[in-house]
């Protein structure tokens, strides 16, 4: 028996809002979270801009752990706002980014001087990314075996998809799922600069992330986290929880093609989206809106457009395609999770959020990307996609709670 799975709690930490309400308001208004890098001195790096989280207090060295804990707190409080916690034993499914590596610690590592406390030793030189998962499971008493996903830019979507499957199949009763990442550090930004992946439009930060625009020159790095609470629809109804949306289907697929470029026809992207539809038992005709991967890189955007045309056929030109990264940059392993929340908010309120900076569309990108301004657009189904460097592609199909 397959259970219907719904979202009953959401939490976000993003460059444009540290809670769901603020994130939603700024998403609808088209606010950019991109600015000069302040977390460290980028000196002469080719890229000196990013979408940073404006956190009010000092954060520990590995910011993604704090982001994940805060997003989990929000999501679980939200899911419990009706007065009861989700039923049964829950677990964590989290997409996480690279281990944080501190260049400052390298010299100290040579000198064999270890910090005194256990916590300091654990984060010395390199902070293992799985610490996030255990910290969430411990703080919020989630005893079901957790899963850590490292499928790069697809990890947040894969984490929610895997959690959906676990709850739908009855292998877990509820899950806290999403992604967290922060690569705005010297090695993170430097590594992307070294392979020419990031925008160098340093003079105009808010205009640098421009998915599907002819003048796009790479992605803008962002940071943050989003977690959602997934549970059986029957459980949610019985305990009177607010249902934000239903996860109707999930699919993922390999490109099996190139290390840094997508398959030229978007083979894996198409397969992932088609599998999400097949998993839900619906055809592409039901898709009312798409939350695109939309990185603002020269290679991704036209290939994603092709994959959407293949999936949606003639309807592709009439289905709004929104690129959240135009406002918050690319959150890498958290991207899919934050964008899933953006998609759920749009689905729930009947809004297609804007794609900023789409002034001069690339002729190879000729769909309706909702340029500049949000639009009222009632939806029953929305597709949210993530395509990773390295050819891992994932998609979620979300259904309106009342559909």
């Amino acid at each position, binding site marked *: 028996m397959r259970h219907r799975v719904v979202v009953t709690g959401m939490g976000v930490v993003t460059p444009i809002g540290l809670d769901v309400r603020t994130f939603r308001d700024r998403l609808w208004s088209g606010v950019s979270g991109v600015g000069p890098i302040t977390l460290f*001195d*980028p*000196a*002469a790096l080719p890229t000196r801009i990013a979408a940073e989280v404006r956190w009010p207090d000092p954060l520990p060295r590995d910011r993604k752990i704090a982001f994940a804990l805060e997003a989990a707190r929000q999501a679980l409080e939200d899911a419990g706002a009706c007065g009861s916690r989700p039923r049964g034993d829950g677990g964590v499914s989290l997409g*996480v980014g*690279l*281990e944080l*590596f501190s*260049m*400052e610690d*390298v*010299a100290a*590592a040579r000198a064999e001087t*270890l910090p005194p406390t*256990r*916590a300091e030793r*654990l984060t010395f*030189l*390199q902070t293992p*990314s799985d*610490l996030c998962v*255990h*910290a969430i*499971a*411990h703080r919020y*008493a989630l*005893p*079901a*075996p957790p*899963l*850590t*996903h*490292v*499928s*790069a830019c697809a990890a947040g979507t*894969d984490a929610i998809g*895997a959690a959906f499957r676990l709850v739908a*199949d009855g*292998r877990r009763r509820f899950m806290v799922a999403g992604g967290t990442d922060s690569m705005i550090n*010297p090695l993170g930004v*430097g*590594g*992307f*600069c*070294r*392979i020419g992946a990031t925008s160098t439009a340093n003079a105009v930060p808010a205009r640098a992330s421009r998915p599907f625009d002819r003048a796009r020159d790479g992605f803008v790095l962002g940071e943050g986290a989003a977690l959602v609470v997934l549970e059986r629809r029957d459980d949610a109804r019985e305990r009177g929880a607010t249902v934000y949306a239903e996860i109707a289907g999930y699919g*993922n*697929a*390999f490109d*099996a*093609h190139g*290390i*840094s470029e997508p398959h030229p026809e978007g*083979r894996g992207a198409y*397969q992932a989206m088609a599998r999400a539809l097949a998993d839900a038992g619906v055809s592409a005709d039901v898709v009312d809106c798409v939350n695109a991967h939309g990185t603002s890189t020269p290679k991704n955007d036209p290939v994603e457009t092709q994959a959407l045309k293949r999936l949606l056929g003639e309807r592709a030109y009439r289905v709004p395609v929104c690129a959240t990264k135009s406002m918050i940059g690319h959150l890498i392993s958290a991207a899919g999770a934050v964008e899933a929340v953006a998609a759920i908010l749009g689905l729930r309120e009947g809004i297609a959020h804007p794609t900023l900076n789409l002034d001069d569309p690339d002729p190879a990108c000729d769909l309706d990307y909702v340029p500049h301004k949000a639009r009222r657009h009632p939806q029953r189904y929305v597709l949210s996609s993530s395509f*990773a*460097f*390295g*050819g*891992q592609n994932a998609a979620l199909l979300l259904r309106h709670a009342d559909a």
Partner: protein
Amino acid sequence: MDERPHPTADDPLVLTGLGVALGASCDPTPYLRQRKLRKFMGVQDDLAVIAAGRALASAGLAGAALGERVGLYLAVGYIPFDESDLETLHAASCEDGRFSMPRFSTSGLAAANPLLTFRCLPNMPAFHVSTAFDIQGPYVVTYPGAAQLYGALEAAAAALRSGEVETALVGGVAHQRNFLVERHFARIEPPASAGPLGDGAGFLVLESASRARARGAPVHGRLLACDVAYRPWDPFTEGIAARERFDERAADLDLGAASLPVAVAAAASGRHHHVLASRDGFEAASVWERA
């Protein structure tokens, strides 16, 4: 509608292929469909491609068009930076013995191996395996140890049972005998490792018995049972000792994410129990019958 029979109690999951690669010195070139990718590969990538290739060959799938009906379920180890790469980057980024951002952003970055980014991403072993063997099916890529491989195995079994895939390539890979990973284990108390750290990869090919029979595949064994439990713990204040055994023997080497498939591949005929209590709060066990 998928009309193919799915594994059930009467149609168990069988092991049709096994492959192992041990040690940090090995050449995956014969398995690569795109030889130009060789320069992007680190030790984890090499090990994963070789072990996957051996497993697929053992399953009678060498050179087969794997495509969309084969899924990859992979656990990868901690990120292994090569010390030489790090040394080069560090030396060119220091001023008066301290890290200097102006130096890093100019001479440091220029001196860095341009392939370093590709070699340290944890999803790269999955990329190289999928590309070398044209796997276009679904995947799980998890991290960082032996316990997470059980999560991948659970997902693979579910995908086979639901009919999402016909064949599941389940494996683990870990390059642990390097500066960064050795240092990571050394700083954990109580000692995190079940034995001396090793480098290795192991892959298992799982299919339903009916599917294996239909294509005339060799059957090397069966997965009889598998279970995972977890106790939440606070990594910043608490440490957990690690234990791992296969049958009654303690593991000779701690192969991290690769330990289960390597143990299963090395087992003699008969029934075997793999039992794991990991340093990260998991207790996992599986029962295998080798033909």
